[in-house]
């Protein structure tokens, strides 16, 4: 009786593992259809990221199915019986070598393709004619600054930050005069479509992370330093910026708006905005 119950445990466990594999396979295979897939892509480099993601999903998916089904088979097939003797099989160097080398080869392939893509996204410099903008994180909103007509940002100094000068822009620096800025929570981030966009990131208080799900973009904004991320938007429209690094009580509300439009429209819109010279005496 006791032994029977023990045998049942093996059968049930095997069945559960098979169910797990089925449920995982169906939900992953149907994830696009069910609507729990990656957000619709809107950037150039994102296509390569998505491809590598799918490759990894296929490889790990096959291994997942293999391992869980093998486990199910083993607990089903070798569930105990009184009087039977297990096999004495302490090792098999050739077999162990096989499951050392095969994963090592697969992982090396992933390392190579990941490394190549990473160097394209992160190690390469943006082209010199890229559209440049600066985004500042502060609890719990985003501030924005454009370099203006001269294409250069004026100097900033956190000590100069005040009610009138929320980004601490040094008005003595001639490059600052034509800068265009929007205090935290005011204004949207306008960028041109099909053109490289460089975003320099700064923070006034704690670490934030500039996260645009549709662009496959995520980069921390760290106080005391400037970080950089660049991308090419491929779709016009309005997208959301979220914060992806815990930044305090209102972290979950730190929403920003990014608008992708034709370059002429962006320039036209920029020309209508007040500059530092207009706003800070």
């Amino acid at each position: 009786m006791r032994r029977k119950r023990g045998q049942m445990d093996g059968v049930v466990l095997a069945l559960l593992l098979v169910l797990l594999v089925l449920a995982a396979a169906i939900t992953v295979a149907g994830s696009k259809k069910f609507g729990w897939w990656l957000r619709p892509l809107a950037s150039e480099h994102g296509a390569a990221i998505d491809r590598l993601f799918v490759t990894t999903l296929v490889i790990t998916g096959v291994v997942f199915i293999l391992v869980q089904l093998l486990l199910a088979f083993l607990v089903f097939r070798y569930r105990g019986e009184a009087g039977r003797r297990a096999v004495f099989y302490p090792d098999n160097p050739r077999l162990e070598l096989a499951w050392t080398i095969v994963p090592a080869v697969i992982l090396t392939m992933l390392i190579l393709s990941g490394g190549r893509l990473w160097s394209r996204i992160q190690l390469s410099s943006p082209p010199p004619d890229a559209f440049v903008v600066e985004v500042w994180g502060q609890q719990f909103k985003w501030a924005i600054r454009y370099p203006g007509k001269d294409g250069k940002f004026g100097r900033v100094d956190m000590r100069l930050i005040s009610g009138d000068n929320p980004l601490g822009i040094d008005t003595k620096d001639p490059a600052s005069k034509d800068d265009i800025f929007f205090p935290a929570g005011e204004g949207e981030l306008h960028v041109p479509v099909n053109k490289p966009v460089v975003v320099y990131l700064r923070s006034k208080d704690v670490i934030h992370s500039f996260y645009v799900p549709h662009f496959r973009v995520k980069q921390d904004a760290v106080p005391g330093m400037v970080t950089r991320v660049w991308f090419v938007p491929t779709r016009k429209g309005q997208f959301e910026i979220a914060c992806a690094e815990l930044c305090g009580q209102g972290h979950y509300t730190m929403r920003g708006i990014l608008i992708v439009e034709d370059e002429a429209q962006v320039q036209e819109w920029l020309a209508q905005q007040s500059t530092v010279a207009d706003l800070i005496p």
Partner: protein
Amino acid sequence: MAHEVHAQTEVHHEPQSFWTRYIFSQDAKIIGIQYLITAFVMGFVAMVLSWLMRLQLGFPGKTFPWLEKLLPHAAQGGILNQDFYLAAVTMHGTIMIFFFITAAGTGGFSNFLIPLQIGARDMAFPFLNMLSYWVYLAACIVLIASFFVPGGPAGGGWTMYPPLSSVKEALMGSGWGATLWLIALALFIASTTMGSLNYITTVLNLRTKGMTMGRLPLTVWALFITAILGLLSFPVLFAAAVMLLLDRHLGTSFFTPYLVVSDKHIPHEGGNPILWQHLFWFLAHPEVYIAILPSMGITSEVLSTHARKPIFGYKGMVAAIAAIALLSFLVWGHHMFVSGMNPWLGTAFMTTTLLIAVPSAIKTFNWLATLWGGNIRFTTAMLFAIGFISTFATGGLTGIFLGNPPVDIPLHDTYFVVAHFHFVMGVSAVFGLFAGVYHWFPKMFGRMMNERLGKLHFWLTFIGVYFIFFPMHYLGFLGVPRRYYAFDQYDFIPQALVHNINVVVSVAAFIVGAAQLLFVINFIWSLFKGPKADRNPWKANTLEWQAPSPPPHGNWGDELPVVYRWPYDYSVPGAPEDFIPQTVPTVPARRGDGGDGKGGQASQ
């Protein structure tokens, strides 16, 4: 060599009073049990905190009048407030990782198993050992005390990234709560350092005659290497914690640059927040292996015993543990791909991170091969060990996404990460701990646990954790960020779908949490009413099963056991029974490879 150094050949005088025997005990077995019970109590606190988080995430905006009665300051109007939500996130992670899993795995099982499995009478330094437990208890008390200070407990996440954690204006929990968090962690590190020194010294010096390193059970190998990892990595976090305390209270600027927090100027100078991340993860990545390795050792031992088979590829298993330990020091930067550190480092850390999957794969396939051809007894311990393999494989595979920096970009700090680490080092580590308690309970207390209740506990937990954590992968696909109090602010998050997933996850979390009460009931009931256990109820080979259940003070009576073989001579052809304890000297002829058992090959 080392095993000839018998520092403890004399039998210790057994302490008589209740206080010296069970409370201020210097007996490693009692200290191990103290560690285990304290750690499980802490784990229970962390689980209740996860319930509160799941209540908010599964049922946002709903009012629960009872919640306000329970937590008048944290849930005005019956809704958990944002500050306490973040405190719950932080304390859940901190307690689960350090104060539960690490404490139970290293403190609990190292103390109980190392002396017994190597044939020693006790640890090398019994007084230091007692001190280690009491400092751990002090750390627990300081951490729990932070629930009762102004501003509440720390809320910056278990990673405590400055400046959020270094400036009290940045967050409610960054006042008193963060200070107590740092002190608790410093105490915890002092405790683990004392423990690690003890475990390393004991394994190297107090092995009984015949117990060569090549004949150590895999539990001892895992605990030994875990102790080395802890000794080398924890002190770095100690230094970092002290530096952060100095930034907070003495105006230094290690991690804190000039800041303006909600219009207030905070005049620090030149600190770098990323420095903390390097120091933190230099510990905290080895730490996840400190958490998982003891459970890997337990799983190996339990699988072999209950499949009635030698562990497959003993040497490969030891080499894999060593390789994991070595690589674990070189992968910390994979937590920082988008942190702003130099992206060239990303390439280096990607390589080491993906390579660490190789020894993990070796271990997984060796466990599977251990089951092949076995005669599996599905005890509760065995079910949890098999559950370990399943959840470890599930969580390990998702690490391949996150270790690859371009793929990490969309997934970083989303629920995909939450799913990944809960499977690979949360759930699987806890499954290992449960397997260990069910397996060694008879040795600890001389009574058997109730198998029927144990199995019910397993089935509910095993099915439940997949319902909790598997759907989180899809939240990750959708890009849903972690550590969010609510998701209603964003249009890119499909509201109805994400809400439905969150309801399923929350309900499963409540059920799994409640199922842990079965374990508590079983534990307490069996302690007093469980059937008496004999010396070796599982017919296992390792030394502890040769001692009485529970073993007396000094473990072995007058004579120390002598070891003649490796611990995995199960189902040896021609042997009268399907197990041969390590103390049995001669062996019936088999396969013509000498009379020393397989251990003759495994040892030098």
